[in-house]
């Protein structure tokens, strides 16, 4: 019982993910599975970014670059080098992690808005580079030969397999996120968020801690990129590096509550369900972007801590078990 009570947030998060993961089996509906795929992808991306943004306090406006790069590397290895999906996913994650390590060691020296600008620059530079990189198909991108899916039991089975891989990856992110939040390493990150200079004086090795937080937040988006574009069947620069996806990730985190484990899950799911509802309504369909904007503005201006943060602020009891 004590074990259960000690980690309420983790159990709550895992329970929510489990319901989402089993939802297609419960309903037995392939369409539901595709909807849930989008939701889980957002949950995983938002939870990953939260390690950097929420715990460390560094705002990455170009986080989608890791998703896109992982996607391109994975796609290339499967389509042109005939690697299996499993190794391609690992390679996508490794490529994203490597980029994060190299770029992070340099740009994490910048603080505040300068860092945010640099991440936009990195995203645009990588996108522009891949636009010109012939092995990756340049501006037209690449398409998957349909025969590739045969090895996974046909296209339908490949879709189903992708979904369960995503469920596993999402659970992995949440475990990592919870570990970071409760570990000594994470405590160092939280200290950096509050006051970086003070943290360094107290013995936190800020440059290396920040870089590892950046790498941790990049690896899973890279793996998901490889998985997503395997399932998608085509890849092109516009699909892989959309700046607005980076910002949607931030919106989801803000909605749920930055710096908490459960917040990004709640925020991502809430955002996706809301967008679905807006998209099917004939009146709001064209105004979807504007409505998301109004929503974001309201959150930023009036509830900057997000839903979980707001609940935590309201009562000490909640604060004890919900992180």
């Amino acid at each position, binding site marked *: 019982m004590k074990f259960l009570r000690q980690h309420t947030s983790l159990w709550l998060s895992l329970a929510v993910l489990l319901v989402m993961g089993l939802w297609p089996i419960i309903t037995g509906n392939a369409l539901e599975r595709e909807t849930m795929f989008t939701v889980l992808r957002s949950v995983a991306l938002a939870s990953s970014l939260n390690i950097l*943004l929420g715990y460390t306090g560094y705002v990455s406006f170009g986080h989608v670059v890791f998703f896109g790069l992982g996607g391109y590397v994975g796609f290339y290895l499967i389509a042109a080098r005939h690697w299996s999906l499993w190794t391609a996913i690992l390679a996508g994650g490794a490529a994203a992690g490597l980029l994060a390590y190299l770029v992070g060691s340099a740009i994490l020296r910048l603080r505040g808005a300068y860092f945010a600008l640099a991440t936009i*620059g990195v995203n645009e530079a990588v996108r522009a580079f891949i636009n010109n990189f012939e092995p990756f198909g340049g501006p037209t991108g690449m398409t998957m030969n349909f025969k590739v899916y045969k090895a996974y039991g046909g296209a339908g089975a490949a879709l189903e397999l992708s979904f369960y891989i995503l469920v596993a990856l999402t659970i992995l992110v949440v475990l990592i996120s919870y570990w970071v939040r409760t570990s000594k390493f994470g405590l160092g990150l939280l200290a950096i968020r509050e006051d970086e200079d003070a943290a360094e004086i107290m013995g936190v090795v800020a440059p290396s801690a920040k870089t590892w937080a950046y790498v941790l937040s990049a690896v899973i988006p890279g793996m998901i990129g490889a998985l997503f574009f395997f399932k998608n069947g085509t890849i092109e620069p516009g699909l892989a590096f959309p700046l607005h996806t980076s910002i949607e990730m931030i919106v989801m985190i803000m909605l749920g509550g930055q710096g908490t484990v459960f917040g990004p899950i709640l925020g991502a799911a809430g955002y996706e369900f809301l967008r679905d509802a807006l998209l099917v309504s004939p009146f709001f369909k064209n105004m979807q972007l*504007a409505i998301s904007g*109004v929503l974001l*503005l309201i959150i*930023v201006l009036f509830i900057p801590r997000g839903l979980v943060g707001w609940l935590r602020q309201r009562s000490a009891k909640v604060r004890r078990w919900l992180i």
Partner: protein
Amino acid sequence: MDAILRSLIDGLLLGFVYGIAAMGLTLIWGVMNVINLSHGSLIALGMFSVYFLFTGLGIHPYLAIVFTAVMGLLLGMLIYAIAVHRVINAPHLSTLLATYAVNMIILGVGTAAFTTSPYNVDFDLGSVKIASAVVPTTRLIAALVAMLVAGGLYLFLKYSRLGRYIRAVTDNRDAAEIVGVPSSQILAFSFGLGTMLAAISGGLIATFFPFTILAGSAYELKSFVIGVLGGLGNAVGSLFGGLILGVIEGLVPMAMPTTWTPVLEFVLFVLILLVRPTGLFGGNE
């Protein structure tokens, strides 16, 4: 040789217009430490404003730019009052997201109203010969207007009472407040000025390039690059930054395919942020 000269002049003329856009961004950053992520959509609004004043009401495009500038100033002050003022002292994430939310609202409404198909201000003044290069007259005038606006802004900030207030708030907001400068109004006005510059540059671009409601984001990214080149917060620097970017855009296509230009620009951008975050010409001015 002629080709190089032509590209160089083309790039320089365009550079002045880019410089004006970047000046708007950097002015807002310099005065209140806010990166305005709605900059691109405000540039696009400037384009559409000129388009509708010209095509709908038959107003001469350069007169339309004057109206556009006034509307830009007012819109900027409105945006500041609604979206920025409440979070002006909050961490950077809040102001970045608040201005991005404004961006989403403008683009969302704009897409619903104008769709994303291209528009074109049907306006031509022929071309003129500079040295041995032939350039469209509209571009030459755009560069002249940009210089005029930049010079006017400089004089305004340097010599007018309001300009002195703005510089006081830039240097030290609390101290300015103590000696009686109404800092909130000055911040709103500065945000309006930045927006005005964005709208003017959009209006100028609309006289020679076709555009869509989404076209602004490309110019916003250019403004970031220029702003960082010239030093964020340094208004004069951003004019030079604009010229440098213009020259790069003019000359790079001679050496390699045009599509490599953005790669060079953004690599340069990140490198300058790393090596000299205060820009080539120093920081706040």
